[in-house]
């Protein structure tokens, strides 16, 4: 018997992963949640049929969305994480002893419940004493915060589902408001390759550019995401991701990583020509 999980990366492109077992399948109030056990990627979490993470390549995403801002801002104490119900980002953040508070705002309690059971490694730091979990709409939660955080990490699903509101100008505006004067917002910004993704990426970049004084895009290679090519947004009130980058200081922390390095940090901001052009068009 052949059992495959397939996901459309574009209307005419499909990505398939062989499945050993379908471990979890539930419809929550917000989305369809599935967890598969697969031979190549280990356990796979899919929301509404889109791969959110796999055990095999989640480290790339979690490291890149966490260590890039952490190595630029010298004194991050209060962090807000949006989405990220699988706990991967929190796990990475929890390695920094200097962080005093991690607020996690997740819309869907069922994602956390499922991940605690089926992805225990990812969810391992959700019970850290610095972590506070809020089940709420992030727009609602952040709207009431002023100068409360040094870092906001937006780890949302793609912009065509329940997270649509997290790619909007009003969302970036209230994030700006919730950050301190030297705060940083990092978000997953989708893929620039297939047209529908590229259009959404450009729209959200444009909205960030008009909200934050500093806004750069960086990249990573993530095999199970569309085109295997993923972007992150680095938006900041004061610190520039390269000019203010403190490589030595970060290296002294001696955090072991599998993808992120201080050399890669700089390299990840150097983008291919087609992407530079795409971004320049909306930055004007």
């Amino acid at each position, binding site marked *: 018997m052949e059992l495959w999980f397939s996901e459309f990366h574009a209307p005419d492109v499909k990505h398939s992963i062989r499945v050993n077992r379908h471990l979890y399948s539930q419809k929550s109030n917000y989305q369809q949640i599935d967890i598969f056990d697969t031979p190549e990627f280990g356990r796979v979490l899919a929301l509404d049929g889109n791969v959110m993470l796999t055990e095999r390549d989640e480290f790339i995403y979690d490291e890149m969305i966490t260590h890039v801002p952490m190595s630029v801002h010298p004194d991050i104490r209060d962090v807000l994480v949006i989405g990220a119900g699988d706990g991967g980002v929190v796990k990475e953040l929890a390695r920094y002893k200097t962080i005093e508070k991690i607020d996690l705002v997740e819309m869907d309690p069922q994602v956390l419940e499922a991940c605690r059971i089926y992805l225990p490694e990812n969810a391992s730091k959700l019970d850290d004493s610095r972590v506070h979990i809020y089940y709420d*709409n992030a*727009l*609602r939660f952040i*709207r009431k915060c002023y100068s409360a955080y040094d870092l906001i990490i937006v780890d949302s699903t793609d912009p065509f589902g329940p997270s649509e*509101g997290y790619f909007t*100008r*009003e*969302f970036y*505006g209230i994030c700006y408001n919730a950050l301190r004067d030297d705060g940083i917002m990092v978000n997953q910004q989708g893929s620039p390759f297939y047209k529908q993704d590229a259009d959404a990426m450009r729209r959200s970049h444009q909205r960030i550019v008009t909200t934050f004084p500093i806004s750069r895009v960086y990249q990573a290679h993530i095999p199970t995401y569309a085109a295997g090519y993923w972007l992150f947004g680095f938006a900041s009130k004061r610190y520039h991701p390269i000019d203010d980058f403190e490589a030595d200081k970060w290296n002294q922390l001696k955090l072991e990583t599998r993808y992120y390095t201080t050399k890669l940090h700089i390299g990840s901001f150097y983008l291919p020509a087609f992407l530079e052009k795409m971004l320049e068009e909306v930055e004007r």
Partner: protein
Amino acid sequence: MLSQLAFFVLRGEYMKELNQNRAPIYEALEQFREMRVVPFDVPGHKRGRGNPELTAFLGEACVSIDVNSMKPLDNLCHPISVIREAEELAADAFGAAHAFLMVGGTTSSVQTMILSTCKRGDKIILPRNVHRSVINALVLCGAIPVYVNPEVDVRLGISLGMKRDQVEKAIRENPDAVAVLVNNPTYYGICSDLKAIVQMAHKAGMYCLADEAHGTHFYFGDNMPLSAMAAGADMAAVSMHKSGGSLTQSSLLLIGPAIHEGYVRQIINLTQTTSGSYLLMSSLDISRRNLARRGKQIFARVVEMADYAREEINAIGDYYAFGKELINGDSIFDFDPTKLSVHTRDVGLAGIEVYDLLRDEYDIQIEFGDIGNILAYLSIGDRMGELERLVSALAEIRRRHHRSSKGLLSQEYLPPVVVISPQEAFYAKKKSIPIKDSVGCVCSEFIMCYPPGIPILAPGERITEEIVQYIEYAKAKGCSMTGPEDPDIQNINVLEGGR
């Protein structure tokens, strides 16, 4: 035995006519689709085959029911089978003596109400903040408007309902008037004391007509203002496509027992198309069924969302999302809790400016913005996630654009001076002059911001200094002005001879 038999016969009747789980037009169309009838009739696209681009755009399911009147599908001009049944079900659901399916928008329902009750030279008592379709109907039939000046809320700058004593005075001073027309509610959700007005009108031998373009849900939700049919009004124009969920341009006209159904049908047929759209009619049928089955829950949910949004918006500061606290027992006899109207002047922005910012910068389209307020339309189809976006965007607009509200015009009520009937003015000899030079002239056309579509000037009214100032201000703030022949709204048609 006899009584038991009668009971069964009655119950049989009941099942046939009043089963709100049925949707006769929808059912007939489904059956028709299955029969695969070969079309040698109009429309010429023949189930979409003749127009592949249109079919690809709208979908085959949609174009395949865009069909002509025929025996199994009845005829809107003279309904005897499935349309008739759909109308009877609608009448039952809305508590009316009869209901007419309308395919020319609520404009056609409003016009039918007026053309059915007024003839040339008849007087009709109405508030000035009526929709343009009302005055358009007066142009068509030649009736004379007697305006009851509505109260104005000074802080919000909006016209309210009609006070009872004002209506009573208008009736007393115009005993020859034939009808009283009431907005139930206004665009902003404000209701007059409809029941009292109906009683006053009937006592004076006048009909009472209700423009319920914004009141479909009054018939289904709990704790809603009184609906026109429940208040005993004679006719009501109901925009099913607004809060009822049917397709744009579909509407219902309801009548009470004192109105002759056959005569109203004749009036409708004077202007209504003879090719009624089955897309529109089936959408009315299915929406009526949905409202009858689930209306109560649906509108409870809408009210819950609107109340939540009011609370959150008022917590932002400077915005005022108003609600039932405005009720004063007379000019605001009741308030429609589904309407999310927000006063914006204290943020330092005109409503129309907030309306434009929401669309241009936040990709949020709301119903309208006027000089001092915005209105977000909440309905069946809304979700909490989008509501959070709206509230957050308003918070952002305040943070980025807050300024002193000095110099912002308050929307005042400009009492109209009716010089001649709208019809006479519309057809009279006229000339085009610049608006700024028109003070003192008699206007022969409409000027309004659309939406909300309430005329600033109607044909036959004297143009005053304040009106010209208001028009210039509304244009400067970016209101979409409509009405005049001149598309740039620089010039206005006035009566020759000045009067």
